[in-house]
């Protein structure tokens, strides 16, 4: 039977019950306006619903009854016993039809005309009292009629209409003639009853306790062989399991209940945003605990709205991207290993990684260096961080204040996890994994510092046996980086945290140095928790901790184990937060370098790294395309020089220091220009700091520009140009050949800072320009006098003697260079300076930190000059 119809029957039966009582009351106190209003409302609701469900017979009867009740309510008629009986008669008819509906799924056939006519007559104010009695009586014969006609229908209909045959149904229809009042209700009421949620919750609590007690008994029985309790205990155990399952079922609801608002939401959204959206919902009958259902309702709604609002493009954009105009949002729910997986996917534009990067930097969530070391997926996960919304403008649809971080928090609160996969131009898939129920979870019991703890199984990825010290055996060894424990797990470094340390339990190192590592997944990150021992898994009932312990966020609750002892349940999310792992993977040490602020001069983001043992070196971050950490084995040798396969190509590597073949991994700074890439092998990447750069000692060694104080320590500044040339001639020649065809464009650099000259020259050379550099405006003007010719000039603004503005005016004043493109290179790229620059004659204005922008600007200026 149709769900809607079932609901209707349940509800109507309840209403009919209420009506019986209310009408009897009405007879006794005809002037009770509240009572009358309630009666009217109940009948009105029945009428309205039947109209909606397409039940004409019911509707007509209810309508006629409602008319009379309306008159009573308005005081036009007075509720005499005769009228009340007439209405009761109408109710009986409704019950009869409802009973038939419940039995056969159809209204049945019957003639209600006399009843309706009588009711109408009463409503019209005809003096019915005397006639009412007969009018009320005649109905029974017609009521008898439907069963007479109905049985053939009833006999045929049940199998297809009602999956569970209700033997009571048919008799009840027949009985009806004799006992009209009791007829309909039992047939329908037998299928569903309404129970308050509290009763179910109490039942669940009791069953949870029962499960615990059962576990306790089983534990006891295990210690005794051949106990006479064994068999009954087995039986008790089975029954308890069945009971648990049964009670769980009472709490289960199809996930479709949380989805029923979505089609409307998506329709409105499509309408408001002028998009075409098709919502497909799969697995709507997947059941899960109502508590969980309630908790994921809002996050789901939010995510679907997000997909429609931000994810899907408008029809025009979709057309131009070669996609069908109608965007698809697919919701898919299914069971997987004791969990429910919900996927929300769209075929929209995907997440804009660049935008997320910019936002992450702007919000101080990560530095450029960290971002460049991150995978695309890691970057995309930034949308789960607080205060992150990629839609530049907050639309009315997605609203404000609620972001994906709230979604993530809510899902994690119920022990779930959320992940995403997004491909630019193809769409985004969010995957939510939530437990079936919150009440009973499976947990891994571990020991640390002589105390036992439970870790919810859902967050455990794997268990690794490791040793604390190097020794015999093939176990992995916990290594330390400056007292921070890490583990090499397959091809990754797994950050570790000792549970002893974390919980302040003191050192309880086992004699054999053995330990277990519980690899847990927190969001996108893996974290290894070092424990002393691992016991088995146990079904536990999560109980909240006492209020005085709520501030200890490491625990999500506590429980009683089978042996009767109390045990704390660890919260991997809390642990990750405490260790800083959840914050997108950056380790705590990464941001500790002091960063000065407010010093005038050229503040540059510098990448600090270690080379040649203890040599602290730095390179402007803008020059580095990516940071990589590769396996030593990946480094091969070609023509006597180290190379590596990198993104489908061979990348030459240059060793900055004597590399240590013992190290399993190699840190690389990758310099990329177009198709070319070069890797600089360094010992270790330390940090990224922003500092003013003042080279205090000029470099005596090749490859070092000089020494500067960065982050409060003497640091050698890398001569990038030198190292780029070390990668081979190709670096410059190939690119120049490819880029500018027959003739290389000549660019003059006017820059007083030796450092920036050193920086820009190789960079522009690499980009295919022939570069000359001078250290002052005067020197540049001397070149002009000597008849040198260039295609473009790049000049600094702040220079001693003659500054960039004066230089620009001098160039524009006349001479062979007067029409050359002039590009200003400066640390101050604010509108005021740009305006001043333009007035002085500069063609373009580029900030010093943006190396790509400079190349783009030069190319643009040149192509404007030579459109060929």
């Amino acid at each position, binding site marked *: 039977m149709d769900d809607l119809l079932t609901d209707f029957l349940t509800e109507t039966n309840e209403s009919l019950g209420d009506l019986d009582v209310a009408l009897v009351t009405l007879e006794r106190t005809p002037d009770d306006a509240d009572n009358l209003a309630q009666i009217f409302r109940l009948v009105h609701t029945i009428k309205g619903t039947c109209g909606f469900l397409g039940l004409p017979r019911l509707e007509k009867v209810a309508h006629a009854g409602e008319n009379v009740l309306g008159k009573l309510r308005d005081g036009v008629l007075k509720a005499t016993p005769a009228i009340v009986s007439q209405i009761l008669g109408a109710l009986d008819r409704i019950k009869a039809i409802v009973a038939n509906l419940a039995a056969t799924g159809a209204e049945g056939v019957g003639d209600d005309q006399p009843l309706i006519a009588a009711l109408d007559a009463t409503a019209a104010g005809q003096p019915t009292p005397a006639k009412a009695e007969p009018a009320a009586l005649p109905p029974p014969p017609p009521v008898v009629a439907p069963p007479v006609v109905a049985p053939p229908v009833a006999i045929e209909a049940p199998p297809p209409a009602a999956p569970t045959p209700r033997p009571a149904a048919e008799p009840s229809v027949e009985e009806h003639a004799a006992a009209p009042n009791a007829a309909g209700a039992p047939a329908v009421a037998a299928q569903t009853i309404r129970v308050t949620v509290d009763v179910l919750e109490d039942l669940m609590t009791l069953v949870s306790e029962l499960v615990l007690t059962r576990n306790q008994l089983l534990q006891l029985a295990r210690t005794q062989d051949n106990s006479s309790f064994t068999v009954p205990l087995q039986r008790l155990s089975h029954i308890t399991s069945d009971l648990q399952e049964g009670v769980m079922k009472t709490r289960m609801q199809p996930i479709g209940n949380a989805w029923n608002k979505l089609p409307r939401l998506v329709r409105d959204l499509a309408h408001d945003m002028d998009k075409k959206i098709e919502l497909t919902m799969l697995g709507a009958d997947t059941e899960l605990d109502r508590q969980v259902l309630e908790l994921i309702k809002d996050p789901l709604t939010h995510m679907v709205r997000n997909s429609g609002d931000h994810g899907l493009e408008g029809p025009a954009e979709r057309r131009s991207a070669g996609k069908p105009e109608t965007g698809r949002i697919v919701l898919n729910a299914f069971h997987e290993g004791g969990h429910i997986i919900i996927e929300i996917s769209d075929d929209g534009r995907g997440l804009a990684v660049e935008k997320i990067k910019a936002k992450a930097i702007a919000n101080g969530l990560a530095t450029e260096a960290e971002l460049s070391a991150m995978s695309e997926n890691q970057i995309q996960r930034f949308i789960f961080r607080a205060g992150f919304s990629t839609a530049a403008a907050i639309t009315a649809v997605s609203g404000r204040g609620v972001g994906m971080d709230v979604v993530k928090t809510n899902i994690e609160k119920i022990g779930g996890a959320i992940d995403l996969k997004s491909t630019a131009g193809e769409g985004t898939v969010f995957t939510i994994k939530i437990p079936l129920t919150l009440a009973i979870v499976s947990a891994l019991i571990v020991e640390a510092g002589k105390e036992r703890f439970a870790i919810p199984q859902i967050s455990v990825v794997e268990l690794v046996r490791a040793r604390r010290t190097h020794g015999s055996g093939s176990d992995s060894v916990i290594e330390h980086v400056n007292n921070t424990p890490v583990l090499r797990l397959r091809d990754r470094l797994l950050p570790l945290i000792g549970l002893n340390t974390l919980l302040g339990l003191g050192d309880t190192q086992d004699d054999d140095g053995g330990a277990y590592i519980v690899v847990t997944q927190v969001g996108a990150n893996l974290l290894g928790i070092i424990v002393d021992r691992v016991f088995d898994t146990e079904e536990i009932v999560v109980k909240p901790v*006492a209020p005085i312990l709520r501030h200890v966020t490491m625990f999500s609750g506590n429980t009683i184990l089978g042996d009767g002892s*109390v045990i*704390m349940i660890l919260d991997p999310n809390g642990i990750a937060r405490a260790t800083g792992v959840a914050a997108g993977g950056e380790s705590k040490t990464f941001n500790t370098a002091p960063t000065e602020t407010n010093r005038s001069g050229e503040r540059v983001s510098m990448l600090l790294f270690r080379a040649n043992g203890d040599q602290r070196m730095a390179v402007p971050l803008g020059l580095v395309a990516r940071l990589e950490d590769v396996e030593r084995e990946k480094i091969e040798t070609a023509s006597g020089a180290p190379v590596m396969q990198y993104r489908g190509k061979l990348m030459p590597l240059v060793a900055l220091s004597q590399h240590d073949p013992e190290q399993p991994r190699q840190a690389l700074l990758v310099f990329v220009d177009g198709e070319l890439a070069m890797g600089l092998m360094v010992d270790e990447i330390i940090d990224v700091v922003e500092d003013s750069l003042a080279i205090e000692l000029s470099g005596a060694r090749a490859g070092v520009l000089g020494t500067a104080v960065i982050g409060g320590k003497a640091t050698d500044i890398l001569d990038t140009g030198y190292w780029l040339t070390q990668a081979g001639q190709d670096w410059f020649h190939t690119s120049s050949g490819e880029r500018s065809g027959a003739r290389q464009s000549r660019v003059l650099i006017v820059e007083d800072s030796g450092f920036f000259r050193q920086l820009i020259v190789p960079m522009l050379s690499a980009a295919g320009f022939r570069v000359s550099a001078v250290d002052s405006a005067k020197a540049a003007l001397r070149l002009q006098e000597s008849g040198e010719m260039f295609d473009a000039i790049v000049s600094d603004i702040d220079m001693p003697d003659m500054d960039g503005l004066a230089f620009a005016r001098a160039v524009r004043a006349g001479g062979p260079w007067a029409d050359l493109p002039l590009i200003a290179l400066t640390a101050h790229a604010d509108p005021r300076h740009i305006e001043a620059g333009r007035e002085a004659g500069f063609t373009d204005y580029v900030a010093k930190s943006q190396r790509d922008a400079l190349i783009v600007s030069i190319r643009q200026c040149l192509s404007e000059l030579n459109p060929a």
Partner: protein
Amino acid sequence: MTTELLDRVDTAADEEQVFVTLTVADQLCGVPVLAVRDILGEQIITRIPLAPPEIAGSLNLRGRIVTAIDLRRRLRLPDPAPDTGRMSVVAEQGGELYALLVDQVSEVVSLKARDFERNPATLEPSWAAFSTGIYRLGERLLVVLDVGRLLALSEQG
């Protein structure tokens, strides 16, 4: 009239309150019997890492998890010698059960109001904060503990 007055004074003074007596660091203390849910012998107590020092841990009381509070620590007294068996008095506060760890629970006594006195002004603040007054017994003094305040740990952070 005189007798009547005397009677009245007598009835007030004779009004009895029932206490569970206990000792903590050799001091006799009393807790109103109505505040006590259970008296427990030595229990297995699970330590709770990172909890405030007064919290000894949690224990299982017939399927309910009870937070154990160390009365000695609460009253800033030195810890007992290790392996001293300790008893607990279970009380309820805000729907939660708490167990007060004490050295020894002795008996249930009825005490007359006339033997009751307010805290002496010189009583140490760590005690005065948790005591409502003192009963004079034959040879000893009994400090009446205020269970509500003893359990109000969360308010103090």
